[in-house]
């Protein structure tokens, strides 16, 4: 009896793993079949207004990159504070709050940014999208930096100090260097996450059918356009949405895998 229960238990557990893998496979295969069949070279050369995706891909990357440009340094420095400088309650409070912020509903962040960066200026703009994405990114970077710095042995810091280096020199030249790979991985994973975000962009930068690099106007976004295209009745729009989804997923998963590849030997 015990052994039968055990067998049943093992079977159920393996079945769960297969279900999990099954969903991943199902989604990826669907994406691949639908995506590849609607993929043409012309998609990369034309803008959405001519039935292509060029402006959207460029727009999404520009938004994510500029958000990363704000989010990474701020997040890293804040992470350095709570691990290296902060002591006691305040650092712990910030750590806990940023932990919570990681799981905060992204649509609410969009609404928040809307009320101070869109509404007063009369319309969607690229800056608002960048702000929303960087707000999403900062807490993730803080958490990564914090936990990666915690892995750096205390002796390294002491050795640096003993050489007479000031604390910030030790942090920048010794501690960060030691944690470099881990932080890079965290940064890439965070970047992959915000690059695929839709909800914070819906009413901040919206999207645009035209090629546009002017951040004061509504800014082309791959994800928001997927949402719009998928809800349109024409088959051509939906095919375009599938192609865009495929490109987005490949982009996000490649960045994600690149991040994991960096730390492949460390775990």
């Amino acid at each position: 009896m015990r052994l039968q229960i055990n067998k049943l238990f093992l079977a159920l557990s393996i079945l769960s793993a297969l279900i999990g893998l099954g969903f991943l496979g199902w989604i990826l295969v669907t994406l691949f079949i639908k995506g590849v069949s609607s993929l043409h070279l012309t998609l990369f050369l034309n803008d959405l207004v001519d039935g292509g995706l060029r402006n959207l891909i460029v727009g999404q990357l520009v938004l994510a990159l500029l958000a990363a440009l704000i989010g990474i340094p701020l997040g890293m420095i804040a992470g350095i504070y709570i691990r290296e400088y902060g002591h006691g309650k305040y650092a712990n409070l910030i750590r806990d709050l940023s932990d919570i912020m990681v799981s905060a509903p992204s649509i609410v962040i969009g609404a928040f940014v809307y009320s101070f960066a869109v509404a007063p200026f009369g319309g969607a703009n690229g800056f608002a999208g960048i702000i929303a994405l960087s707000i999403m990114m900062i807490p993730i970077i803080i958490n990564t930096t914090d936990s990666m710095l915690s892995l750096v042995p205390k002796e390294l810091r002491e050795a640096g100090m003993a050489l007479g280096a000031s604390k910030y020199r030790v942090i920048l030249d010794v501690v960060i260097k030691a944690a470099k790979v881990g932080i890079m991985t965290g940064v890439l994973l965070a970047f992959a996450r915000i690059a695929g975000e839709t909800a914070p962009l819906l009413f901040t930068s919206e999207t645009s059918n035209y090629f546009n690099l002017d951040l004061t106007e509504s800014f082309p976004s791959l994800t928001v356009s997927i949402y719009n295209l998928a809800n349109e009745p024409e088959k051509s729009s939906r095919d375009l949405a599938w192609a865009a989804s495929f490109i987005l997923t490949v982009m996000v998963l490649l960045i994600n895998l690149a991040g994991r590849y960096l730390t492949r030997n460390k775990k």
Partner: protein
Amino acid sequence: MEKLFQKISLSSATLVLVLLLGIFTTLFISAKPAVEAFGLQFITDQRWNQEIPLIESSDTVIEDSDDAIIADEDDEDMILDEDDEEDAATKTVFGGLVPIIGTLLSTLIALLFAMPIAMGIAVFLAEIASKNISKFVGMAIELLAAIPSIIFGMWGLYYFAPLIADTFGGYQVSLLTAGLVLGVMILPFMAAVTRDSMNTTPDVLKESAYALGATKFEVVKDIIFPYSKTGIIGSIILALGRALGETMAVAFLIGAVYSLPDKITDPTISIPVAMAVNFGEASGLGESALFYLGLILFVMSFAVISFAKFYFLKRGNA
């Protein structure tokens, strides 16, 4: 220089606090007209964007509110007619009950669906699979977590929902399909965190149990689960907190209709979806009501996540 660096790092850290307080205050300020107009009754009122005559007492309104949603268009027409004839004053009422219920129910369905599978995957990864298989499957599950939510929505709408609708009947866009796709979405996160909790069980404990002749099931049931219980419960609640605020996967599937579902296969709406769908066209009181919903959502997920973090996932054991 040292001082400067310290100051900069302190202010960046403070930015988190400022952002959080900023979100709360901004949402509250933007929601204020709606808060003042509807008060806390907003939470229990199921009418959304309905015009009612100003003079009418609230009792009669509640009486016909059951049919109000189905008869939505007729009602409006009637009221419009009245407007023309008597020039009666009307006001528009917004209530958050439907999106709130929709959010809770879809999250519940997601949780019920994802929890057993996530537990199974976690046990598989932590205890059953060999190291290499565990690494490979673990990675695959984490990749599933990395797929953007809008992709889950597309896939759910065109492939998963038809299957569910064929099996269970009802509409393709419904509470059920939205909840299940949400479940698929939180599955990898839940599995990964649960696995990490299970992995904190000391090997000595497990080995002692095996040495006494315990089967794998008994080890998991009597050793690993009691040991990592708080961590597991914490990660489930954390996943719940994330599911509450998920927008895009649900937006494709829930139907975005302001009506309470009679059956699980009926379409309805959730708070994030209400915001995503209606924000663009909303203005004035409508926009303010959406901010009110956003505030409720933010408070809900903040409470759930901090409960999970502080009660179950105390630092050091998670």
